């Protein structure tokens, strides 16, 4: 017991003082691979993977590190994508401002819903978040500016800072890479900050954290809002990539999908959500020709994942390597 405490402390110290070497290497390799990627695979596909990787990482901040299962994250992802699409198309904002507007909207939405939901726990928390997400869906369906089931189509890609055209796939790719990779690094930073340590303490033993004098609800609200904001960043970016914001992004099955990605990759790991998002998006892309079998295959992965690989792909790897990933 004492040993274990010491090692966790040691890890905690290492984590707060800087990035472990292994993580540095992985992030560098990842960045290098991502820079080459658009010249090897179809850039739009790569961008989709990155958007979902950020979305899953944002979700993982809440579930894996905050211990809160939200079943309504589509609200922030989709909400932000609608606002960003509207900002770019109707208000004529430049891409970076449109994304910023969408992200800010998700932050506000997350703050409001978070403040109302964090008072509940476990399955009730999940259900309250689902209820609010259904309301956001309802607004997206009924409101005038969202275009009903057509969504907001033909969003212009525009010029970055009003200067650099993003019409080309490669230019857009590097814009998206900057946003999503930056977002993921920021999430990493949050997790390994003193704030992140308190979060873990709350997740492990809430009464103890309270007795230590931490305002638990304030921490939960902050992490909820942060997670919603980053999910919003992912959604806003996605709307710029596909030039479209649609009901798919706010539907409850999107909330389910992000749980699947996180779980498959390994919740509570740094790289798990990225891997999970990569696997699911690739699968959806390449299995599209199988038609109805896609749902069946996805279901089988769910079942096998829960029965055999509950730690997720990265979780299993981390156990082999005996290092946190």
């Amino acid at each position: 017991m004492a040993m274990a405490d010491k090692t966790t402390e040691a890890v905690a110290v290492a984590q707060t003082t800087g990035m472990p070497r292994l993580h540095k290497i992985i992030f560098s390799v990842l960045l290098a691979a991502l820079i080459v990627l658009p010249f090897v695979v179809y850039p739009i596909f790569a961008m989709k993977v990155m958007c979902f990787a950020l979305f899953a990482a944002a979700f993982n901040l809440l579930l894996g590190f905050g211990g809160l299962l939200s079943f309504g994250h589509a609200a922030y992802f989709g909400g932000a994508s609608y606002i960003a699409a509207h900002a770019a198309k109707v208000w004529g904002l430049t891409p970076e401002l449109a994304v910023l507007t969408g992200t800010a909207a998700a932050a506000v939405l997350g703050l409001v819903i978070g403040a109302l939901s964090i008072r509940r726990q476990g399955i009730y928390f999940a259900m309250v978040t689902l209820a609010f997400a259904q309301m956001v869906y309802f607004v997206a369906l009924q409101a005038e500016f969202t275009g009903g089931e057509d969504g907001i189509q033909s969003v212009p890609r525009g010029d970055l800072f009003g200067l650099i055209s993003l019409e080309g796939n490669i230019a857009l790719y590097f814009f998206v890479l900057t946003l999503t990779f930056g977002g993921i690094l920021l999430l990493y930073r949050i997790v390994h900050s003193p704030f992140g340590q308190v979060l873990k303490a709350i997740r492990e033993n809430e009464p103890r954290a309270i007795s230590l004098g931490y305002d638990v609800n304030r921490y939960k609200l902050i992490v909820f809002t942060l997670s919603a904001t980053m999910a919003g960043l992912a959604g806003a970016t996605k709307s710029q990539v596909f030039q479209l914001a649609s009901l798919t992004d706010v539907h409850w099955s999107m909330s389910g999908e992000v749980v699947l990605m996180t779980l498959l990759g390994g919740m509570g790991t740094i790289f798990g959500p990225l891997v999970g998002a990569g696997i699911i998006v690739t699968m959806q892309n390449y299995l599209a020709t199988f038609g109805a079998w896609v749902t069946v295959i996805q279901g089988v992965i769910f079942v096998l994942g829960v029965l055999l690989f509950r730690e997720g792909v990265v979780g299993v790897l981390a156990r082999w390597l005996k290092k946190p990933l």
Partner: protein
Amino acid sequence: MIKKLAISTAAMAAVIGAPALADITVKLGVLNDRSGVYADLSGEGSVVAARMAVEDFKAKDKGITVDIISADHQNKPDIGSNIARQWYDVDGVNAILDVPTSSVALAVADITAEKNGVLIDSGAGSTALTREQCRPTTIHWTYDTAALANGTGAAMTKAGGKKWFFLTADYAFGHSLEENTATVVKANGGEVVGTVNVPFPATDFSSFLLQAQGSGANVIGLANAGGDTVNAIKQAAEFGITQAGQKLAALLFFVTDVHALGPQTAQGLSLTEAFYWDQNDATRAWSKRFMDTHGAQPTMVQAGVYSGTMAYLAAVEAVGSAADGKAVAAKMKEMDFDDPLFGKVKVRGDGRAIHDMYLFEVKTPDQSKGEWDLYNQISSISGEDAFLPMLDECDFTKK
């Protein structure tokens, strides 16, 4: 990944290199719903239809190599546009066929224009494809909501159904269907006594039907599609609404839906279609071949994929290449088509294919002599009367 790159460059080379050689390579993508509500009326059947067109066109003998691929857009615009983009960018697709679900069709139409392909839409109903969002590369082949409204709406109003109550699926498609029909009803001296917006999708219509019953209308217009319409009709029979004298008008309904309901429940229903398998010898012969491969009779959407593909291939042959979508679409607008399934077809400057539409009535169980013997033809509506007039700004032959 490297292999994929190699394939895509090969495809690009094939497309670019094609005009220099005598033989032409064409790649067609059938993009439709393969697992959702429209899977039975489009789906794999549309792929079968496209293959039959390639066969009947004798493409091989004419030195045209045609490759057909297909995918499921799941009725979601984001998935559909993603596939379309990838088809044009990576797989070297020249034309996209079918595309039911208006929201997806509109998204694909934009991408098609941007990538200089051709969209030959058979499955979607939105008039916006050739109006508000018209594009030079969009061809809208089979039907649209205005044509359905002109068929069913006009016929029923003239037959004495002057007071209409609409059950409208609460999304853009439902509203546009209702609007189109209401215009036709009013133009024929009828009136709209009420409308209820039903959340989509819905399984229970009893509450809305009861409201329609209480409204004193003589026609209940069902401005919805697929499973929603099926459920609404079933429940109208159950609540004795049709027996009490109110008539139902299914504004978008396909032969597969009638087949699913059975003549017992669907009898007497009026509907408008562009094609029915049992119209004449040519349609019967073709449908028999279709039935042998696919196991069901063709819908008008699947027949439209066949006839649209025939027309497209003829235009490609005339142009000598499939690479320039704009040129092929322009050629299609110059040509006259005489087709075994749709008869005489002319593609207008805005991309709207003009052909006759037909008003059908569902047979009673006594009249029906087989599983698929479902319709009596009431009248035919000429293309000029069925479709909306062309908007000047959408006439791409003038530009």
